[in-house]
């Protein structure tokens, strides 16, 4: 396959994959909507860490945009990719922090003190984090590749794919977070 075709093909693969992931979360969130309209639904206030993690994941996206610009101008983007990786890891840490503060509030995943609302909250954020870990792995791979000078002005598909996926995780998180704020 020539390079152009390869670019469009892989990008499409990614887009359709992301559509699929969207439907997965649409399934979960619509379950919340159906459930929350019934009786016995209690609201939960979001821990502040989720606000921090929102900022951090956006920051990661910005670094990836910069690294794409850098590679296009012919320079090595490894440093910026590394920064976005750090952002991703911080995001994961903040998610764990958020969960532990929920636990301190007495909002558990299961057992006494749990409610459908809190169970849903954990499941949705956990499922998102699983996808973030996938994103972190691909950022890490692009990082090692760019350290080894595998990318050039013409060939930077890996960086592009990674950053599309990360932007997607970013937007997905903002949607989920807004959803959780509003519904749960």
């Amino acid at each position: 396959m020539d390079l152009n075709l390869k670019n469009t093909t892989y990008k499409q693969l990614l887009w359709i994959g992301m559509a699929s992931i969207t439907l997965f979360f649409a399934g979960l969130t619509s379950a919340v909507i159906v459930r929350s309209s019934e009786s016995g639904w209690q609201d939960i206030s979001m821990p502040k860490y989720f606000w921090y993690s929102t900022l951090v994941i956006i920051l990661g996206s910005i670094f990836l945009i910069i690294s794409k610009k850098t590679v296009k101008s012919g320079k090595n983007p490894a440093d910026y990719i590394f920064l976005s990786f750090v952002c991703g890891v911080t995001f994961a840490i903040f998610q764990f922090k958020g969960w532990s503060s929920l636990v301190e509030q007495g909002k558990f995943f299961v057992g006494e003190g749990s409610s459908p609302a809190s169970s849903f909250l954990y499941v949705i954020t956990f499922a998102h984090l699983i996808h973030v870990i996938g994103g972190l792995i691909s950022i890490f791979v692009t990082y090692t590749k760019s350290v080894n000078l595998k990318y050039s002005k013409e060939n930077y598909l890996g960086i592009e794919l990674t950053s599309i996926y990360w932007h997607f995780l970013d937007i997905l998180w903002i949607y989920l977070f807004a959803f959780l704020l509003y519904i749960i």
Partner: protein
Amino acid sequence: MSDHHNETFLSKYIFSLDHKMIAKQFLITGMFMGVVGMLMSILFRLQLSNPGESFAVLEWFLGEKWAPGGVLDPNMYLALVTMHGTILIFWVLTAGLTGTFANFLIPLQIGARDMASGFINMLSYWFFFAATVVLLTSLFVETGPAAAGWTIYPPLSALPQAIPGSGLGQDLWLIAMTLFIVSSLLGGLNYIVTILNLRTKGMSMTRLPLVMWALFIVAILGVLSFPVLLSASLLLVFDRTFGTSFYLSDIVIAGEALHHTGGSPILFEHLFWFLGHPEVYIILLPALGIVSEVISVNSRKPIFGYKAMVISLMAIAFLSFIVWGHHMFITGMDPFLGSVFTFTTLLIAIPSAVKVFNYLATLWRGSIRFTPAMLFAIGFVSTFITGGLTGIVLGDSALDINVHDTYFVVGHFHIVMGLSAIYGMFAGVYHWFPKMYGKMMNKKLGYIHFWVTFISAYGVFFPMHFLGLAGLPRRYYSNTAFPMFEGLTNINEIITFFAIVGGIVQVLFIFNFFYSIFYGTKASKNPWGSTTLEWTTPIERIHGNWPGEIPTVKRWAYDYSKPGYDIDFVPQTESLKEGEEEH
């Protein structure tokens, strides 16, 4: 790309990246699962026609534990019904059908060397294989395989206290299904991208053969609906293993009040059928595509109303996402919602009717050649009519009240979805066998196979409508518990008789298939006189499909018996003559 001299056994037959080999892997795994699933149905049919009687064959297959003294255990009955449904719906008619023909035909018919990603394609098969292994393992678990029905409605599927199959058997079922979903997502991604990007020069979307359109739309359906099943079963897994309360509430079982409160089983049904209904069309559409192809080739006539065929495929696919509620009319849903679902459901009859009329119009004034593939395609048209019409009864919420979950439903979906899709699959295998293996399948055995299958399949499923109208619920271990159903035993005997005959005759097909691979007569390059691209490839399998350049496409796929030509088909690679209109 076209050299394959240094292929080892492993890279050629096992971890192959070649789409044609992967297709065969799907086909043979699917056939194997088909035999397993059909055998199960015969085992439980014996119990249904002769309730409580002893059969040596039951004890032989199921052992002393599940068929003590040769009498089928009621728990095992439910497990067999569940596994039969799961295997046939997902393993045979989803993976076996789409996996085979999408992998085999897409690159060949659009003019590509292989799938967009051979590696993802291989992964797709191996996830499917792993799923198969896990599912089969669950048959040998002490508490038996999953037994809550293929729809695994909680709480039944969530509580091992309610039925033994909901223990380890259900866990393995869920694992197998997760692997299966991953497999079909990977496959679906690949199919879509390949059709969009790798079409050869001149192959515009409007020149695609209909089977390509069908597989394309099926892939989109799969990619959009399977993730929702994944989220539904994820929540079920949490309920089962971690004690969350998504689907469970206020339950007392085995004398114990469970802690779950606030969940809703109906929520699962919504999520499940949001996949479940598109799944029906994931099964049906490839068969529609294959049949369009086979009917056109063997009537020596262009498919009538190509555009209408494509549009109706799209309409059916679109509607399939907004009709799921018709499985839930009697769950106490809001009556207004019920009305909406009745409306959308019955709308599906319109594009379906268009398809049937177009098939009939294609046959009209054709020059019909009765190959075994053509016979099965005709069988498809017949079952599609029969089963489609009874759908009008079931889609009507008011009528559904009294036939819901009775044998009327069993008859309906086996005919419209089971038989139709299986006939489509047989048609496809008979039609493309010469391309797959370079050999012909035996015609006479094919004829016998068709006629016995056609007669016995109707003999099995048509009488079921009467059982349903007599009020007999499905998934009943026996009809003897109610005096009102006692008269139905002789209908059940007829059904079982035909089930056994229909089961045995499949041996002919399997024999024909494997015998022909090794000893069949050599096929010519284009044995059916077909216009599409796959018949321009050389007979022996090569990696990369065409030895030289990929041919360019100059016309649509259905120029059969075109005036102005001596032969009755014009291949897609032939240029239009001066002044000739495309169609």
